[in-house]
């Protein structure tokens, strides 16, 4: 084939350009620390990267959901423990008087103590987290319990509703957050209506009505069991969130590793490639410079 100086020059330019663009692409990877800087660098990897990126964000959001829910659940746990302890006190006090007594002072004493404990139950039942009543169902702006002893006892003690609200803790994984008050201190329609039964206990003690006191003592026992069930439910939730949180941390870790494997530039490898490419580039430049200086004119 006949070679003209133009062919040589065009070839040289073409090769210099190719060499340069390869050098440039290696340099970009090193400078950005990323293997892929735009979708067209590798559409398949880009698809994976944005997909994993989405999952990473979602996972972080679920973790944030769990952290916030944990505050609520821990608060609920503390409140339930307080209720259970108070209930234990009530049961202990009631036990001292199940046979009734003619000692008016003792009865009044007991009534005073029970009244205090009743107020304590209602106060704990009215626990708030950031202005929200945690035992009011979804009526979180309604104070669910009246702290005062009702004379005569009134059945309608619970003012919240029986709705449970749920949050998402993982993809398609829903967990209930609150325990409505009717499952804790009960209501006139659901479970043992603890405050009402307590009011009736106080009335019975004041009247020294022994059968009624015994009946109410049994009610207090059932009430304590109801609180225990609530505690178990809450503890189960805390433990589920804990497990899910660990799984999410694991997922996040895996995702970050995978993203890192695809995206993080391997400097050692790139440095070697850079050196190779640089040698090739310099060789191209050098040979171009030499060949383009040779001409028959120099010898005529």
């Amino acid at each position: 084939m006949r070679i003209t100086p133009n062919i040589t020059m065009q070839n040289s330019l073409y090769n210099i350009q190719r060499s340069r663009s390869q050098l440039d692409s290696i340099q970009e990877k090193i400078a950005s620390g990323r293997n892929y800087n735009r979708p067209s660098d590798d559409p398949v990897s880009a698809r994976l990267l944005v997909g994993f990126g989405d999952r990473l964000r979602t996972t972080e959001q679920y973790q944030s959901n769990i952290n916030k829910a944990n505050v609520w659940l821990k608060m609920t746990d503390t409140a339930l423990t307080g209720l259970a302890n108070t209930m234990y006190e009530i049961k202990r006090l009631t036990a001292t008087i199940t046979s009734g007594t003619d000692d008016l002072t003792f009865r009044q004493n007991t009534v005073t103590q029970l009244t205090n404990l009743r107020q304590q139950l209602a106060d704990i039942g009215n626990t708030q987290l950031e202005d929200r009543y945690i035992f009011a169902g979804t009526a979180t702006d309604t104070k669910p319990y009246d702290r005062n002893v009702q004379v005569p006892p009134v059945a309608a003690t619970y003012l919240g509703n029986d709705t449970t609200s749920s949050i998402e803790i993982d993809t398609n994984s829903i967990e209930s957050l609150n325990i409505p008050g009717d499952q804790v201190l009960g209501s006139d329609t659901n479970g043992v209506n603890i405050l009402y039964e307590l009011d009736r206990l106080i009335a019975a003690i004041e009247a020294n009505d022994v059968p009624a006191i015994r009946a109410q003592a049994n009610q207090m026992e059932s009430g304590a069991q109801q609180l225990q069930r609530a505690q178990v439910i809450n503890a189960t939730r805390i433990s589920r969130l804990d497990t899910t949180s660990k799984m999410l941390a694991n997922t996040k870790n895996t995702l970050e590793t995978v993203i890192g494997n695809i995206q993080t530039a391997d400097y050692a490898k790139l440095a070697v490639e850079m050196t190779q490419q640089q040698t090739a580039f310099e060789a191209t430049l050098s040979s171009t410079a030499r060949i383009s200086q040779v001409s028959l004119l120099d010898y005529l």
Partner: protein
Amino acid sequence: MGISAAFEIGKSGLKLFQVAAEVTSENIANVNTPGYSRQRVLFETAPPTTHNGFPLGTGVRVQVVERYYDSLLQKQLVNAGTTSGYDSHKLGVLQQVEPVFNEIAQDGLGAAMNDFFSAWQDLSINPSGTAERQSVLAKAQIMVDQFHYVSRSITDAITIQNESLSPLVGDINKTLSDIAQLNGYIKNTELVSGNANEMRDQRDYLIRQLAENMQVSFVENDDGTTDISYTDGSGTYALVTGTQAGSLSLAANPVALPDGSTRYDVQLTDAGGAGPTTLAPTTGKLGATVVMRDTVLQGYLDDIDALAAQVATDANGLHATGIALDGTTTGLNFFDPATTSAANISLSGDVLGKPENIAAAQDNFSGDNQNALAIARLNSVNGYSLTYDAMVAQVGLDVQTSQTVVKQGEAFMKQLTTLRDSQSGVSLDEELANLIQYQRSYQASAKLITTATEMMDVVLAMIR
């Protein structure tokens, strides 16, 4: 036949080697002229005469000055030029749009959508929280802004394609009339004498340039003119017939561009004056411009519009059934219900600046979060992020495919150019060698005349 014959032969040599040196100097001068084909002088012996019973030559003469030229190579260059014109323009436009979808380098619409639905997750945990409600509105605004940005970027790219038609058409028209003019010159020149080599080179070069803009076929006539025709889905048209050139023009299409400006149709008045007819170009730079405007970029825009409309419709569908913080207001829209595209998606007046109107609840209790939770889950249920991610990958794939095609095209083009250069390109070394050869021959012819003069002197001396 006498000594004077030697004079004649010497003179023909002098004349011819002078022509040869001129052709060589023309070659050297045009070493860098694009489209130039090197020329050479073909010699032939002058017709012999008979002397003293022997046939003897009368010297040398120019048979023809011809150019090194391969018409098949020209055809291949023309076709390769069309492909490369289309591909490189397409790649250029795609690379301008790619940064909009570059979700791996920086957060864009994909991240904004995720953040928006995350804000709803936060709201589901504290449905009555003012901060959470504000956050939902803020993230929604960011997402809306991102939709606008993507939409505007693509719309702008479409408009730029449309506007670039005007200079492109002007360029093509100038090329067409230049070719027709050259046709006339070549015909006239060759009627008088020889080959119009330089003008043919120019015409070949113009045809190659024309082919980069649109696919043409050409055929050379006996009188030296070249006719050029163009074919697309709408028919076959004569662009140049002899010295007549057709011309392209732009006409307004009734369907406006996405940004409301006029969409141009390319029309052709053919070399015979018929038309204008609306073309459907799909080849060369002209085709790439129209295809990018009407198909590729429009496709991206349609996808992003569909996504925006779906997000708005789905979110509104749930939001309207929910209940605001006051526990009674319902039927509110979150996004403007008139939303049909990424360009006009916006927050509805119901919630804009009124975080208390966000319907997080499905019943009249402030702690109810069912609606917030349902909206938060829309993304994982309906997969908006997946749709968008697929778009990102699609754009990446389009650019990458285009890059590969352009790279192959460049290599092919380079191969063809090398072949053409090998055949037609000027080699200075070769020309210099030729020059010396012609110089020596010229000196020899001069010597011949000197010798003949001396011989003549001898003869004349005898007479004296």
